[in-house]
């Protein structure tokens, strides 16, 4: 089926963007929700070269919508391209995040639930169980035979302190094909380069840049919980929000053991459309 791209791009070019103030995280979720009525379109990519395998490019397109101030829903489309192999669509995910506590606290919990239907996925949006280098050694044709229909739960904990955002995620994932629960973690910390805003419009003001550190990895599964044969990554991360509302993010990440891919390069772009549904109401947007 041919997708009509022209009307979508035309719509996006006229939509009013927003200074999104995104956190520069690729795997970790913060407790901050999408504003109600806003739609954020994001594209996150990862490049890696696993030892003994072919280099790959994993990509995810996300549509994140603020249903309520305390509820965010997100739909993902995943794909990947492997050197000397093929480029394939790998599946979709649908997630929901809910804030059980209204208001801001020292530690803010968010409940996350996701269903995913993927195969041969290389987007590395999370690392759980014994995910590691061996998962990247099969060709796409073989890897596609392993269909993963999974339910994923996360407990997201987030805090803001003196301009720093500190986020921790505890992950539990279950393949619905009678496989054991797998576990993982992610944490990250970030801060804008400047906390107060400038009194004039500017593209490269320090407050438009955020830097931080992100770390994530697997914790085994129900039968073999722990760090044995698990992969872990750490890396600095940064982003810049342009005045037109586009956010660019980048992070080089480093594998911490032989079971991890030595280096991953992540980059992303996101764009937020304020009050998305108002464009479909009579009178258009205000």
């Amino acid at each position, binding site marked *: 089926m041919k997708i009509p791209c022209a009307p979508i791009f035309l719509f996006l070019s006229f939509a009013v963007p927003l200074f999104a103030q995104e956190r520069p995280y690729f795997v970790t979720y913060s407790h901050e929700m999408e504003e109600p009525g806003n739609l954020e379109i994001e594209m996150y990519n990862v490049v890696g070269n696993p030892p003994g395998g072919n280099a790959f490019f994993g990509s995810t397109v996300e549509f994140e919508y603020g249903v309520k101030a305390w509820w965010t829903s997100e739909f993902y489309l995943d794909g990947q391209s492997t050197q000397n192999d093929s480029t394939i669509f790998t599946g979709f995910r649908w997630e929901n995040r809910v804030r059980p506590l209204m208001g801001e606290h020292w530690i803010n919990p968010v409940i996350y639930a996701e269903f995913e239907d993927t195969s041969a996925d290389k987007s590395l949006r999370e690392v759980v169980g014994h995910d590691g280098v061996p998962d990247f050694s099969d060709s796409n044709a073989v890897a596609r035979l392993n269909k993963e229909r999974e339910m994923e739960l996360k407990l997201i904990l987030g805090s803001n302190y003196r301009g720093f955002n500190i986020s921790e995620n505890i992950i539990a994932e279950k393949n619905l094909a009678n496989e054991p629960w797998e576990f993982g973690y992610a944490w990250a910390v970030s801060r804008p380069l400047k906390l107060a805003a*400038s009194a004039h419009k500017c593209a490269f003001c320090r407050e438009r840049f955020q830097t931080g550190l992100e770390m994530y990895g697997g914790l085994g599964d129900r039968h073999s919980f722990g760090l044995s044969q698990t992969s872990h990554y750490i890396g600095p991360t940064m982003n810049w929000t342009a005045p037109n509302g586009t956010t660019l993010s980048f992070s080089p990440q480093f594998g911490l053991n032989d079971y991890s891919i030595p280096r991953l390069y992540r980059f992303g772009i996101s764009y937020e459309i304020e009050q998305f549904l108002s464009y479909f109401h009579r009178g258009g947007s205000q």
Partner: protein
Amino acid sequence: MRVRILLLLVVAVPLCVMMAKAAADGAWLATVPARDHEKTNPYEGKPDAIAAGRLIFEEHCAKCHGPNAEGTKKRPSLRSERVREQATAGDVHWLLLNGNMKKGMPSWAKLPDPQLWQLTSYLKSMHD
């Protein structure tokens, strides 16, 4: 029995409507803790903070509350006596930080604290 139910409906429905209206009309002010209510704005009286606050407002708030904070069909005006006079700077800062999520106002904790105070400066500076 039917009369009782009818009577209950006659009393309960307007009561619920009144309560909902009261909540939309600034009931949040009563929930601000005393410590936050008494906070003072570190940027008070600084024209640069008002200018910066206006830019923050345009980027984050104008779509819902209108380009000049006059309100839109679904969202309230911020050029009200409540924001300008009744609420202290601490109250406005508390609302921005915590939101009023059940009423659709998100938490703006993603903005650093100085920016919330700059936004407060701008909101408190507006006139009818």
